[in-house]
């Protein structure tokens, strides 16, 4: 009897999902195949945006408010992950053997980290003209963090220092202050003064990249910590 109900439920869910797929497919097929969305509008507004690349213009200027909130999401995720730390912090690391005992790893790090960091900086700067920007740069910085954490260079309890907290929050803080100051200046959030728009965006992007990188690395470390503990505890 129980399995019968389960089967009915299973069938029902599949039917609903199939219906959902058909509904969506029908809607997609009914859309105008030549619909251009806002492509032309964006192109027309690019000269006023302070940057040349449309994606960056949308992210940091036209819909910059979304990005502000999105960075808040990342910050909230970091806070949330920290808040879950068990009362006694685990000392486990991903690699039991610290890197400074392994010369190959150490040299590798010495080469890779500056290179990646430079690439990240380039990405942030180039975002104004071609594909790139804070997210790509931040992701690379995050990769540095992951490398350092995996090799045991960074301790897992790193967030206890105010400098780390500041680095995580910097992107949001800078962005928010710009938003509030522009609100005070122009009556609406995030209306950048025209001649300065490019510079303001670059400043925001730099802070964002830093915070995104640090946040991603910290999220990874928190999850990795947990994963290690998980493995050790498992029977």
């Amino acid at each position, binding site marked *: 009897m129980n399995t019968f109900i389960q089967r009915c439920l*299973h069938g029902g*869910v*599949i039917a609903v*999902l*199939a219906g*959902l*797929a058909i509904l*969506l*497919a029908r809607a*997609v*097929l009914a*859309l*105008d*195949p*030549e*619909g*251009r*969305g*806002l*492509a032309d509008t*964006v192109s027309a507004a690019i000269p006023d945006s302070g940057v040349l690349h*449309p*994606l960056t*213009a*949308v*992210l940091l200027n*036209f*819909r910059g408010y*979304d*990005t502000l909130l*999105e*960075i808040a*999401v*990342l910050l*909230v*995720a970091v806070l*949330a*992950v920290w808040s*879950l730390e*068990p009362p006694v912090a685990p000392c486990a690391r991903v690699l039991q053997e610290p890197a400074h005992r392994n010369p190959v790893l150490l040299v590798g790090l010495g080469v890779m980290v500056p290179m990646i960091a430079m690439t990240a900086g380039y990405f942030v700067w180039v975002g104004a003209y071609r594909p790139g920007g804070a*997210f790509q740069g931040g992701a690379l910085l995050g990769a540095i963090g992951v490398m350092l954490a995996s090799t045991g260079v960074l301790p897992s309890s790193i967030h206890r220092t105010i400098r780390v907290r500041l680095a995580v929050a910097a992107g949001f803080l800078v962005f928010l202050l710009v938003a509030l100051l522009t609100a005070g200046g122009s009556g609406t959030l995030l209306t950048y003064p025209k001649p300065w728009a490019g510079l303001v965006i670059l400043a925001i992007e730099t802070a964002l990249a830093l915070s*995104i990188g640090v946040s*991603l690395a910290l*999220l*990874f470390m*928190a*999850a990795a910590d*947990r*994963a290690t*503990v*998980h493995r050790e*505890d498992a029977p």
Partner: protein
Amino acid sequence: MTVTIYSMAAIALFVLGLYGLWWQPHLLRKLVSLNIASAGAFLLMVALAFRGGDPDPVPHALVLTGIVISVSATAFAVVLAARRYRETGAVELDDPEERP
């Protein structure tokens, strides 16, 4: 035509992801399923942005925002699930062996 193929694939991914979210008992599998569904949604956005020849940047920006949100939520969910495992030993949402 390309748009249609990508769109249909995206819809399929989305629906499969939702199915997995419902059907898979293990929390990590649920999370993977959820990410598959997200991938479907993002793919659909990018695909539809390509309809008019040169791509519409707005959906791309939206996808980027969506990805960051998805990454944040996934990381949090993983840590949450791990913490719960430490507390209760449960790896499934309705784990019958969950310690009270």
